[in-house]
């Protein structure tokens, strides 16, 4: 039995549902020598502002139980250099490029999106309204319904490319943000970004990160992320979802897909195993064969809650 791994996420066509998560895969080219970039469903490149940024001083990461905190601070080369230097070689390698963008103001988001709308080889735009590690921008917008609406609608006006706001889990009701994003013109949403967190060195009584706070990712957050994808699916059945949060294996990805994600992003797992992509695809295909499901699309949102509800 041959199975179809391809998915459509709000107009974004992917050969398989596995996308490299933004901030975890550089600009993709860093991995070009060891991974065939065209075999990934897509690559969400590191978040870009209009201008170059240096980010936070070290220490930028610290490991925690089954997870890690990061506060990189969106070090990056700026959107124009990305378009000039990174997009052409990414195109040559057949990568499906999802450009993650961030702004300090609504106008900056729109300006970056305008530049990308004119560029060749941008499959979709992911709106970073959820980075917890910067003082202006990111989660500042994504933790208010009005801010979410303002950014999404402003960017929607300047681009026809698939538009995917990336949601923060650091809110009371993430589903209401998915609805707000949809109503403002989003084609899909991706979730979750990292959980705001902290680790302290008790010997020195100092925070372990230079930025004091950081974002928690990895297997430690997976069950919460699955729950949030489930909630968004319930609240906005018509809105495609890209799920993420501690996916290490195909089985982990399946949880998100069954909960309602049309595609998934993989971040921390790539740090542990940069060759994880083949294993994820193979594991997913094996599952579909084993369960006689013809395609990934047919599996999305097939959660059976009958037993859970009567228990």
């Amino acid at each position, binding site marked *: 039995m041959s199975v179809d791994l391809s998915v459509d996420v709000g107009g974004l066509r992917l050969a398989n549902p596995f996308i490299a998560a933004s901030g975890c895969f550089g600009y993709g080219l860093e991995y070009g020598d060891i991974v065939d970039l065209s075999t990934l469903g897509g690559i969400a490149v590191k978040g870009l502002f209009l201008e170059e940024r240096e980010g936070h001083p*070290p220490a930028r990461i610290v490991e925690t139980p089954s997870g890690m905190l990061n506060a990189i601070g969106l070090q990056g080369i700026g959107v124009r250099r990305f378009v000039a230097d990174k997009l052409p070689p990414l195109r040559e390698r057949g990568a499906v490029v999802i450009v993650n963008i961030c702004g300090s103001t609504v106008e900056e988001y729109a300006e970056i999106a305008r530049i990308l709308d004119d560029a060749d080889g941008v499959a979709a735009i992911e709106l970073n309204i959820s980075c917890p590690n910067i003082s202006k921008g990111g989660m500042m917008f994504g933790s208010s319904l009005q801010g979410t609406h303002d950014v999404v609608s402003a960017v929607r006006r300047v681009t026809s490319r698939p538009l995917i706001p990336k949601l923060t889990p650091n809110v009371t009701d993430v589903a209401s943000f998915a609805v707000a994003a949809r109503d403002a013109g989003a084609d899909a949403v991706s979730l979750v970004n990292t959980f705001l967190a902290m680790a302290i060195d008790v010997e020195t009584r100092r925070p372990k990160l230079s930025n004091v706070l950081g974002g928690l990712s990895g297997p430690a957050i997976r069950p919460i992320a699955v729950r949030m994808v489930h909630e968004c699916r319930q609240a906005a059945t018509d809105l495609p979802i890209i799920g993420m949060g501690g996916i290490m294996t195909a089985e982990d990805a399946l949880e998100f897909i069954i909960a309602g994600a049309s595609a998934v992003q993989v971040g921390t797992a790539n740090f542990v195993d940069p060759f994880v992509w083949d294993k994820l695809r193979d594991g997913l295909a094996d599952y579909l064969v084993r369960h006689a499901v013809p395609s990934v699309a047919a599996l999305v949102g097939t959660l059976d809650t009958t037993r859970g509800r009567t228990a």
Partner: protein
Amino acid sequence: MPVDVDAVVLSNTQLSHDYNTVTLAAPRLADQAGPGQFVMVKATSGDDPLLRRPFSVFEILRDDEGRTTGISLLNKRVGVTTRALYALRVGDHVRCLGPLGQPFSLAAPPERAWMVAGGVGLAAFATLATSLRARQVDTTLFYGGRRADDLFSLEIFDALGVHLRLSTDDGSRGDHGNVTVPLRAAFASTDRATPVRVYACGPTPMMRAVTELAASEGRATDVSLEQVMGCGLGGCYSCVVPVRGPAGTHFVRSCLDGPIFDGGSVVWEQLGE
């Protein structure tokens, strides 16, 4: 091109209560490893600990015919991964991704090479010494530890014809004090016209002190920095080193552009411990 090998442990030699060397069967990795490059190691399975840890390739192992067979790691027991490495048994498996990073740039005669090592920083220098001696560079190892029994693997360097200048904090072997004591003496007895290339690897305060001492003698120092790394491949931007540039401090990924840096360009105040 880096490879990820599931390497079998060939031996584990416990050098002290804290230090050990592990030899690993990894010919494909050893074939490519240059002096000062590193590997990302996962010594345990499962999600906790989650991330790999960077280790210098200590030695390149060869069989009787000179073919590469594997690598060794010099390990100091500090955290979860290093405790697992200390306790390895022959036949266990360790995942190693590498070789990664840029190798040392090599001195050439008549330039002399002074390698300055503190503690587990020695790990960067066996491959460097081998390359330097292969090109007939007059090479000296300055090596400091807390006590005499903290100074390991001297026979490797001895066999290569490397001069040894040792120091211990308690004076039980070599000079009394830290490694800058014999280094300072060496500078004092060396004509400034003699070309010398200084390499340093060890605790951050030591590398900074060596860089500053060498600079005061008009010498540059190549330091091998051990930043906390997420991926080792440039994906995460965790392991950055603050470097002085024309437009101010710039954060440079040590996994891709390092781990070797010009010590004089490092903004040590921002580097952290």
